[in-house]
């Protein structure tokens, strides 16, 4: 449980839809103890909840079980444990599907993040779920709610690892918790060892967006970053005291890996999607990013140390989604000369025609990209579906009845999409009960 060993954690998925090869390369191309995968962006749960309502055996990232099946022989041969929040709103069904596809694997499931069934009772009991950004109470939206999931921390995930499971499947958890859990498990860190937990959270934050650590989406000297086609995803080498190195495998299949881990790439990720850097809230600790020290440690190696932490917050973050209404966005290309001018004129024509039809929208937007040849993008949103639907019939006619040179209408009329909006809130820790179970 302790000692000076190094634990290696690879992070192979930054969101649902990220590279399907990255997890394979991480387990095959170099030393690894744990593979962590994040499937859940802010809005993903509402999509999964919809799939679950249509079919109660769905509601999770359905490409995860086939991935595990593909990885299974290597996981067993090399003793690698996998952690993923691929379970979405139905972690149990996800875990059962893994068992069906790879019966040789032991699978643990972490539940307790789904608060949707308990919301009426929790509101009754005085939890208000006020919007973290705007401050309004949730109650008026009760009949429009689609999902409500509390961010679980790393301790239940660590408990699941301790069961010896080859794969740990959870629903919503803090992204960094997927990387922190193996450290807690291997080094026996306690909930009051706030500096160690903060170190783990900082390390987890640095890798939780996958290739954004290793040279992807990196502005600093981007032209010189080698071979992005074969970019390796990040690996953490972490010590029992929390000191760690961020690196990547040298190999990618049979050749050298691409991308670059540098001070610049790690700094860009350290500042990614944070608020007050001195108070980065997670369910396990409040980490102070202003205490972190970074240093080069050889090619493609950055040493991270010095993180300080404060005790875990009393309240946990809940991500709630609700039906807002409908939206649609359409694009047209206006050819040279004066494409941008034609595009702007075209937008005015569409709004004038919509006004003649008596349409008004809760929100509308026009974007024009380019000058000589230009892309026009128009979008509207409204609680009424028919209002949005009527708009989608007004764009394509421009090809014949608007300014000259409109093209790029190959996809036809814009599609109407449901807007399921996001409502961040807090809930008392005492009402949250994570549950860990190993599937028989």
């Amino acid at each position, binding site marked *: 449980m302790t000692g000076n060993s190094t634990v290696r954690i690879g992070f192979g998925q930054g969101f649902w839809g990220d590279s399907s090869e990255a997890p394979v390369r991480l387990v095959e191309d170099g030393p690894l103890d744990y593979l962590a995968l994040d499937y859940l962006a*802010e*809005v993903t749960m*509402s999509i999964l909840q919809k799939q679950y309502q249509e079919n109660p055996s769905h509601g999770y990232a359905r490409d995860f079980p086939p991935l595990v099946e593909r990885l299974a022989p290597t996981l067993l041969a090399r003793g690698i444990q996998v952690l993923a929040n691929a379970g979405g709103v139905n972690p149990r069904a996800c875990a059962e599907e893994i068992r069906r596809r790879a019966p040789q694997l032991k699978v643990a499931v972490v539940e307790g993040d789904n608060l949707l069934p308990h919301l009426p009772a929790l509101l009754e009991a005085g939890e208000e779920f006020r919007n*973290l*950004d705007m401050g309004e109470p949730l109650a008026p939206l009760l009949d429009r709610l689609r999902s409500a999931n509390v961010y679980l921390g790393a301790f239940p995930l660590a408990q699941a690892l301790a069961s010896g499971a080859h794969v740990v499947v959870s629903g919503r958890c803090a992204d960094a918790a997927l990387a922190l859990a193996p450290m807690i498990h291997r080094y026996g860190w306690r909930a009051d060892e706030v500096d160690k937990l903060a170190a783990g959270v900082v390390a987890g934050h640095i890798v939780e967006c996958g290739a*954004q650590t290793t040279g992807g*989406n*990196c*502005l*600093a000297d981007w032209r010189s970053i080698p071979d992005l086609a074969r970019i390796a995803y990040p690996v953490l080498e972490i010590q029992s005291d929390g000191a760690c190195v961020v690196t990547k495998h040298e190999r990618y299949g049979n050749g050298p890996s691409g991308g670059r881990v540098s001070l*610049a790439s790690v*700094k*860009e*990720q*350290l*500042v*990614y*999607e*944070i*608020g*007050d*850097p*001195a108070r980065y809230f997670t369910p396990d600790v409040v980490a102070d*990013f*202003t*205490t*972190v*020290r*970074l240093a080069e440690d050889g090619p493609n190696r950055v040493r991270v140390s*010095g993180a300080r932490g404060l005790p875990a917050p009393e309240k946990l973050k809940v991500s709630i989604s609700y039906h*807002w209404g409908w*939206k649609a*966005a359409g694009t047209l290309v206006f050819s040279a000369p004066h494409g941008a001018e034609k595009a702007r004129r075209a937008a005015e024509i569409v709004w004038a025609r919509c006004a003649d039809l008596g349409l008004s929208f809760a*929100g*509308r*937007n026009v*974007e024009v990209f380019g000058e000589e040849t230009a892309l026009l*993008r128009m*979008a*509207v*949103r409204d609680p009424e579906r028919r209002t949005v639907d009527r708009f989608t019939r007004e764009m394509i006619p421009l090809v014949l009845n608007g300014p000259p040179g409109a093209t790029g209408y190959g996809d036809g009329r814009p599609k109407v999409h449901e*807007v*399921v*909006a*996001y409502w*961040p809130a807090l809930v008392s820790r005492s009402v949250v009960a994570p549950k860990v179970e190993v599937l028989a």
Partner: protein
Amino acid sequence: MKVRLETIAHARSGDKGNLVNIGVIAYEEALYPVLVREVSAEKVRVYFADLIQGEVIRYEMPNIAALNFVCQEALDGGGTLSLRSDAQGKSFGGAILGLEIEVSEEEISLLNLPV
């Protein structure tokens, strides 16, 4: 003289709901004081006046020679609600590097700036 922010810094931006945060990182520690002096929260708010409806708060991270700008009401509702092509605020990091800042002749030679 006036130079673009990209001369001294790189950046990355992202979202949290309707918030955008823009992390701006000086290429070298010696450039951090210039960054702190030249890029105020107000300057960022004015630069993105078309896009940011709310307040801009600036946080300092001297440990990595970076500033973090948290911009409120910056994504037309954010996430699924936003009607923008960049609903997640990914483009703010690149865009801010076009901001013009003032550096002295002395700083240019002292800091070896590529201008």
